[in-house]
């Protein structure tokens, strides 16, 4: 499941960040920011127009990600850490 498919307020664990193309700097930056396997994430809010960008909580930080960016993150729902 993609991070973009996660309903507002729901939590999940990051599985992986996929490169949209070879040596994708955006995917690289996402990994730098903590989007790595096993990290809990939550969709905190969605912007008014077209629910783009999304506000994602990871660790104690909140990042605004456009849908195209969040699309790179695959997540796993089920049991999550707080």
């Amino acid at each position, binding site marked *: 499941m993609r991070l973009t498919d996660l309903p507002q307020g729901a939590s999940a664990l990051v599985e992986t960040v996929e490169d*949209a193309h070879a040596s994708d*700097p*955006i995917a*690289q*930056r*996402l*990994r*730098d*920011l*903590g989007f*790595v*396997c096993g*990290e809990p994430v939550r969709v*905190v*809010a*969605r*912007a*008014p*127009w*077209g629910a*783009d*960008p999304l*506000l994602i*909580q*990871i*660790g*104690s*930080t*909140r*990042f*605004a*990600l*456009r849908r*195209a*960016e969040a699309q790179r993150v695959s997540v796993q729902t089920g049991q999550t850490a*707080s």
Partner: protein
Amino acid sequence: MSQAPLRVALVGNPNCGKTALFNLLTGARQKVANYAGVTVERKEGRFDTPTGRRVQLLDLPGAYSFESTSPDERVTRDVLLGRYPGEAVPDLIVCVADATNLRLHLRFVLEVQQMGLPIVLALNMMDAAKRRGIVVDVAELARRLGMPVVETIAVRRDGAHGLLGLLDTHAPSVPEPAGDAQQPPSAQRHADLHAEVRAILRAAVTMPRATDARDDAIDRWTLDPVAGPLILAAVMFLVFQGVYSFGKPMTDAIGDAFDWLGALAAGWLPAGPLHSLITNGVFSGLGTVLGFLPEILVLFLFILVLEESGYLPRAAFLLDRMMVSVGLTGRSFIPLLSSFACAIPGVMGTRSITDPRDRLATILVAPLMTCSARLPVYALLIGAFIPHRPVLGVFNLQGIVLFALYVAGIAGAMAVGWVMKHLRRDRSEHALLMELPSYRMPKARDIALGLWERGMIFLKRLTGVILALTVLMWFISTFPAPPAGATGPAIDYSIAGYIGRALQYPFAPLGFNWQISLSLIPAFAARETAVAALATVYSVAGGDTDVVSLGHALASNIPLASALSLMVWFAFAPQCMSTLAVIRRETRSWRNVAISFGYMFVVAYLAALVTYQIARHFV
């Protein structure tokens, strides 16, 4: 002390308080605010530790990582690698981390540690961490990281005690690298650093909850799809209405005071050129511009409070989609908002935009935002031509016209962005990836300092470039004296009269008389000077010296259609020189300066032409 100073660099994630710490240690007053990317350049300062050790402190732009970098992050990386021209590698790195945000910040600390320079960690914002019940076992953290750790509170006067003590006693040494010294391939190394951070946090940090409950409560409203945009619109409207309602009465008071001073000076001085220079040049010209200081300060008050509060990145989040549709990005919002104060910090602030294409687009539209130097021009014309009439009970017509002029600038920027988006060939994807900080109560002292700084900058401009131009305007409006037996007003025979009449040809279709056309030249150096120039010209031609009487002089000399056209001209015109110079510096290209100047001239001319030609049929 004969010893060479200890060279220390402040490094860390964006918005962790490096600059606040820098200001605290060196007594400097570098700009601080609550969003990522306030510091975009390296800044240097000096101080002595309690035992007299000299320290040369570098404040560097915040960075998330050194792998994929924006222009400001590159500065930081280059300094640490010794690649920055004229900058030796620092003796010691003080890594600053926000104690409430260690999950993110410690990873970067580990990345910096891998560079192998002597390093200590300053755990900043310990006050906020304690308030949220976050407990850090500092000794354990230091042991796990393999580097000294001190707690700091950069916003408190004595908040750097621990760090100073450490700098005093600590001999810089390369720490034991905590992890494997070998560098595995990128993805693997990432997972390793993150895993290491998690292990350290488990051992040394207790966090009752991941987020600040207060932030969550505020965000529930400010980021709501319906309430959020309404709150944003209300905040923006309040700012512009506030500038007019609070600033205007003070402006009038200053105008009265200058009238009184001018009259006093006129009584003392013997008649002659000096009398004319002081009353017509200095008091009319400078006094009129100085009168707008309160309005400018009110505008800055709002901007500073917004910057400190942490609300601005929220606004950027709400507006991102809209800004993308006009070829910009949510990240453009903060540079564009600072352009309401002045386009120069706005253009420089675009360095925090990672993407070169988005950055250039933002630079090109930033001068369309209504900067504070336009405010005197607008306020003068609005005061003279727009009646003070209540609208819908709470608003007044003058405030609404001012708001409309600001909206015109924004709409212009959107139109220009949209056109640029469709002209360029590069349609590839560009990232937002923007951090939203915790809210913070603005500190009265910081706001007061910020206002003081801005006030002083304004006064320096006033006594520098504006004074010089005003005296020049007085000179060319006064000399040469009319020939014996001349019948018209004396100013018609002056240099100013001749230049103005020559300039009037291209500007006549916009409804500008020769006095206005003439004032456009000094406005190119600094926009407010247009007001000073008009005041001088009309005052030499025989008139009083303050804003109100300049307003009367204008109202009796030009029609409303010309005034509207002039306001529209100022909304779009390519000004000022300093803005063009900073565009040249930031983009390293004369072509971008030419594009910027060219499109703004065309837009301003056409918009003013249309305004005048339509308005003169109706009013």
